[in-house]
């Protein structure tokens, strides 16, 4: 479970973001404690990815407060923030022809000076990241030749090599087949439970990632529609309010939670 108490590692207060004159986030309050796993859910266009990008300081203009370890995110230098927060964007497209090792080493950027080579410390961080994500056997492969599941693990490894302990992931299990989904969920579970990482993941995977989470934030039209533990989320009325669709709940999910699936008319 989450380590509660103490200062939140991530926080937003009345966060508003508009893109092209349209409000994407309309007053979002959020707190993520140290070691917590937060799942962000909601329908397409609810502002989930924008919220995630804002937490990593990638959204240039916003109103309200965004804090990382108690400091406004805008007050960090990019390098400094990169040593605290790592972002794994949606990566449904293959990266360039870099080798897996070269790509993961790029994660060390915030620790390197312009002309300096990797230090022993950098190599250790890269090796650890490769080991944690179980991709040591892929290091010499080109990024172009990886399967979706391998690629996702490489992207997570690069984020871990960055050295921060806050991990932001945008739909980490989308585009993956079931075996690779399970691998990524296990990996995130290990990072969260054993690695002490604070994890925020945008996801549609209610029975997997959301069920594993300590808490869930449900966004609708840029507003917080739900905030609480997964047990409180798994309720037909709550889910219908968030997704605008009816759900069927049956027993047998993870952690004693029900399994949920969208109900179809006529079924």
């Amino acid at each position, binding site marked *: 479970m989450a380590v509660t108490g103490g200062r939140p590692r991530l926080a937003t207060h009345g966060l508003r973001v508009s893109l092209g004159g349209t409000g994407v986030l309309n007053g979002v309050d959020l707190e993520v404690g140290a070691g917590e796993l937060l799942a962000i859910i909601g329908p397409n266009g609810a502002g989930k990815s924008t919220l995630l990008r804002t937490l990593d300081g*990638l959204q240039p203009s916003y109103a309200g407060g965004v804090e990382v370890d108690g400091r406004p995110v805008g007050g960090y230098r*990019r390098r400094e923030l*990169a040593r605290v927060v790592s972002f794994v964007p949606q990566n449904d497209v293959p990266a*360039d*022809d*870099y080798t897996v090792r*070269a790509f993961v080493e*790029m*994660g060390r950027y915030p620790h390197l000076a*312009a002309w300096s080579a990797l230090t022993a410390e950098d190599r250790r961080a890269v090796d650890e990241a490769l080991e944690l994500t179980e991709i040591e056997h892929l290091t010499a492969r080109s990024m172009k030749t990886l399967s979706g599941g391998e690629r996702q693990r490489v992207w997570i490894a690069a984020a871990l090599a960055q050295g921060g302990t806050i991990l932001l992931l945008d739909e980490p299990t989308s585009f993956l087949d079931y075996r690779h989904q399970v691998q990524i969920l296990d990996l995130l579970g290990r990072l969260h439970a054993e690695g002490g990482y604070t994890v925020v993941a945008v996801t549609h995977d209610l029975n997997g990632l959301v069920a594993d989470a300590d808490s869930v934030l449900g966004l609708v039209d840029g507003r917080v529609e739900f905030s609480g533990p997964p047990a409180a989320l798994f309720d037909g009325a709550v889910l219908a309010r968030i997704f605008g669709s009816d759900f069927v709940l049956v027993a047998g999910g993870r952690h004693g939670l029900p399994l949920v699936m969208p109900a179809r008319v006529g079924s």
Partner: protein
Amino acid sequence: MSRGVGLALVLAGAVAVILAAPLIGPVSLPFSVLTDPFGADPSSRIFWQIRVPRVVAAFLGGAGLAVGGAVFQAVFRNPLATPYILGVAAGASFGVAAVARIGVGVVILGLGLQSWSALAGALLAVAVVWLVTKLRPDAATSTLLLAGVSLNFFFSSLILFLQYTASFADAYRVLRWLMGGLGGVDASAVVQMTPFVVLGMAVIFSFGRELDLLATGSELAASRGVAVARTRTTLFVATSVMVGGVVAACGPIGFVGMMSPHICRMLLGPGHRLLLPASAVFGGAFLVLCDVAARTLVAPAELPVGVITAFLGAPFFLWLLLRK
């Protein structure tokens, strides 16, 4: 082929081309000129005062254009998006044509007005490209390439206007220069060009890691700690300086900047800390080679080297377009 073999090939090829090039030309030279740099003998003068500076100029020019191409290809994540295609060379050409039309010969800080105006033209074109990416940050590369095409047309129209209103002799001079050539290049052109190329490369080479990250996407680069806006601006200015300096001396030579980094990437992989210097060496040697062809193919007459690079480069461009 391993990357070590690729690197050895590029280096060995470049050294061979650079050593052989000054000995090749419409007049055959004896090897004895090598030991006689200040001789009064015509062969020795041709070698040391005409061919060697020309080879050096071709190498510097090719190197500068190739590195500029590598930078733009990484920043825009597209092998077709080079300074030449995006109108930077055309902007520099307009600067040179404007000075030629006005006909003022002023030297500022030891460099001719032609160099400074080429630099200004290059910066103007880059500013337009920068504005497009600023106003449409998520624009597809095709948008950017089309913006480059329109920028090229715009500068062409300005140059045509200048030519049309110029005297016949001035117009011909500009036209000849626009074809891109090293015919009139001498030691003083090398002196004019060197500071631009060296300064630009010194800055660009220190951004190898940033270029690697930008090539994987600007948002990811920012997330990994790159100050993206500042890095891009620095790289754009450095590239403009370099391309402006080269164009002022050699004219707008096309396609070297596109082909060289692309071929080096296939041989050596995408890592910029190796790719940038390798592209410089490859591009330099490539232009030296093209220039050898330019002065021997129709000897005793000479072709503008831009004719040769475009003849090779345009099909290469098509191949890149069709490959995907």
